[in-house]
Every structure is written in C-alpha cells, then in structure tokens.
C-alpha cells in the first residue's frame, strides 16, 4: 500500500511544482515507484518542469470522466522507468473534478505504487480541496517572506481542519548571505512562527532555473546544491535521519577586512 503526499503552499510561485518534480525524481532514483499528479487544472506546469510536455495524450479529467483507462493516461518518465506523470487538463477548470473523485483516484493508485505526489494549485478554493482529498500526508512549501509565511499559516490551519494533522514544512529559496546579515528570516524564525516540524531547507540556487529550462529536475544533478537538498528531503520521507543542510556562511578574512573599512557587502 502506497502513500499519498500533497505538496501545497497557499501562495503561488513559492516552488510547489519544482518541489513535486524533484521529490518525484529523487524517490524514483531510490527505487520507489512514483506517480506525480498535477492537480492544477487549467494551469498545468508539472509536465514542462519534468520535460514531458510532448508526450501528453490523456489527462486527469479524461481518467475521471472515463474517456481512457488510468494506465493510458500515465506518462512514463524519460529517465526513470518507475516514475509516472498524470498531467492536468489544460482546457477545463477546477470544478470539473470533485474531492470524492480525487479520493477514488488516489485509492486506486495507492494499490500499485509506493508514492503518489500531488502538486496542489495555489489558493484555498476548489482546486486545493480536490488536491488534499486523497492525501495521507501534507507538505507545505514556503519561502522566508511575510506573504508566503502568512499563506502557509492559513493553509496549515485548513489542512488540520481537514484531518491532515502535523503537516511538514519545506523552507525554499533561503539565501545564506541575506540570513547572515539579518535581512532574511531563518529556519528557526519560520518554524517558531508556524509551529510545525521542518522537513527540509532548499537554498536559492541558479541551478533550479537552468534545470527547469531544460526540463530536467535538479535532484538528478549531482553538482546542484538545491538538488542535494531535495535528495536529502527524499531520504527523510523514506525515514532516514538526515541532518538539515548547513547553509550558514562564515566570514572569510577578506570579508572581515572589507567590513572593518566600511566596504559594502555586495550580494
């Protein structure tokens, strides 16, 4: 019996889709069978982040309306034979699906695959309710900004009210240089405010932009710091005890010198 994990955030643009794609790839590289579901109906993007946009024939709505069998709509990943994507429909809207239908879909996928990762749309309306309906666990993605943290707090409240207790937090796009000079909230600041356990921290990293350009999730890139962060998160999901990535930077002699003479630190 597999596990359904919903990746959510409330606010848009904090990295839900990137997180879903990277965790899917990382779990697949650990020999787990994985299905990624894009629940953002009308605004699908997981397909392009995964580089699978040219292979779509059927989508989530086709499965729910019975236009095709579930297996026909699952797109096999290019890199991992045990990783599949169920794309969202691009031409329908969120009301084309009900929470009951999503629950049924998740139940049948759980019988055959180890992990079902659901990429939740932004917002707290129907799309959110659909995405969380079949979930066993929730992961909340946020960035260290007031707007994202505020929305994360709202989402945590809604998740708990829906019976998804103890959601885990991923703090995305941390910039160690800004944290160091006190211009960005730390991991401790955010977890204290939201009162949830942390699943992982992901540094702000150019390699995410580059890998998304190419349609190859960063977790496959051994040299990517963000990729390493996602691989660590994957291992924690699998139950390993992996320490949080150390993102603190220490002053080099040159930086201390510059500070001493009042030079401005350029980010």
């Amino acid at each position, binding site marked *: 019996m597999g596990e359904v994990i919903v990746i959510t955030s409330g606010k848009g643009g904090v990295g839900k889709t990137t997180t879903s794609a990277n965790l899917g790839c990382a779990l697949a590289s650990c020999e787990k069978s994985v299905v990624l579901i894009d629940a953002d109906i009308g605004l699908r993007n997981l397909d392009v982040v995964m580089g699978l946009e040219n292979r779509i024939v059927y989508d989530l709505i086709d499965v729910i309306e019975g236009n095709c069998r579930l297996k026909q709509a699952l797109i096999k990943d290019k890199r991992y034979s045990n990783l599949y994507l169920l794309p969202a429909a691009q031409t329908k809207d969120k009301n084309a699906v009900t929470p009951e239908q999503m629950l049924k879909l998740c139940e049948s996928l759980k019988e055959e695959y180890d992990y079902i990762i659901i990429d939740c749309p932004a917002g707290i309306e129907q799309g959110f309710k659909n995405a969380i309906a079949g979930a066993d666990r929730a992961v909340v993605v946020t960035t*260290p*900004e*007031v707007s994202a943290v*505020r929305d994360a*707090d709202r989402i945590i409240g809604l998740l708990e009210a829906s019976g998804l207790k103890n959601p885990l937090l991923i703090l995305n796009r941390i910039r160690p240089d800004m944290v160091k000079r006190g*211009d960005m*909230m730390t991991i401790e600041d955010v977890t204290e*405010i939201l009162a949830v356990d942390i699943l992982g921290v992901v540094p702000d990293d150019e390699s995410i932009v580059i890998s998304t350009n190419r349609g190859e999730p960063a977790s496959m890139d051994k040299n990517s710091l963000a990729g390493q962060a996602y691989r660590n998160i994957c291992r924690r999901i699998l139950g390993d005890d992996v320490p949080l990535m150390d993102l603190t930077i220490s002053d080099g002699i040159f930086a201390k010198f510059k500070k001493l003479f009042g030079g401005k630190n350029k980010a």
Partner: protein
Amino acid sequence: MDFFGLFNRRAQSKNVAKDRLKLVLVHDRVNCSADVLEMLKNDILKVMARYMDIDSEELDVQITQTMSDKNEKVPMLIANIPFKNVKPPRAARSLNE
C-alpha cells in the same frame, strides 16, 4: 564611504518581518476583522462611559497572544483605556437600570 553607517545600523529587517507576521497571524487565526474589532471597541466605550469620563481618542484595543496555564498559545484581548475621572455614584448608570 559607509563608515558612519556602522554607528547607525537600522533594525535588522528580518526582525521587522517577524514582528509584523506575528501580529497579522494572531488576527488571521482568530478570524477577527478590523470591522468587528472596531464595533467591539465602540461597545466597550459605551459601557465604560456610564461609569467614567473617557477620551475615546486614547482608547487602544488589540488582539495579541499569551500562554495559557496549559502552556498553549491562546489569543488575548488587551484594552488600554485611560480615563479622566470616575463619575459620582449618582451619575453612574448600570445597564440594569
């Protein structure tokens, strides 16, 4: 030259963010709009005015958080109501009258 900047460090912006967030989340969590708080403030004023002379400009009502006996965070209403003087017993009117 940024030398004098060292003596004049502005508040770290992350602390500003944290303080603002804490305040806004207390309101979000209890689901209390500014309108409701304003209505409550006016009603409190009306009752208080029966017993004392109050400068309504000075009234400060806000929702914050405190720790309960069970060590859980609970919302708390704080009202700061400076008054000029208490009305003489004959001028004070209870709601029951």
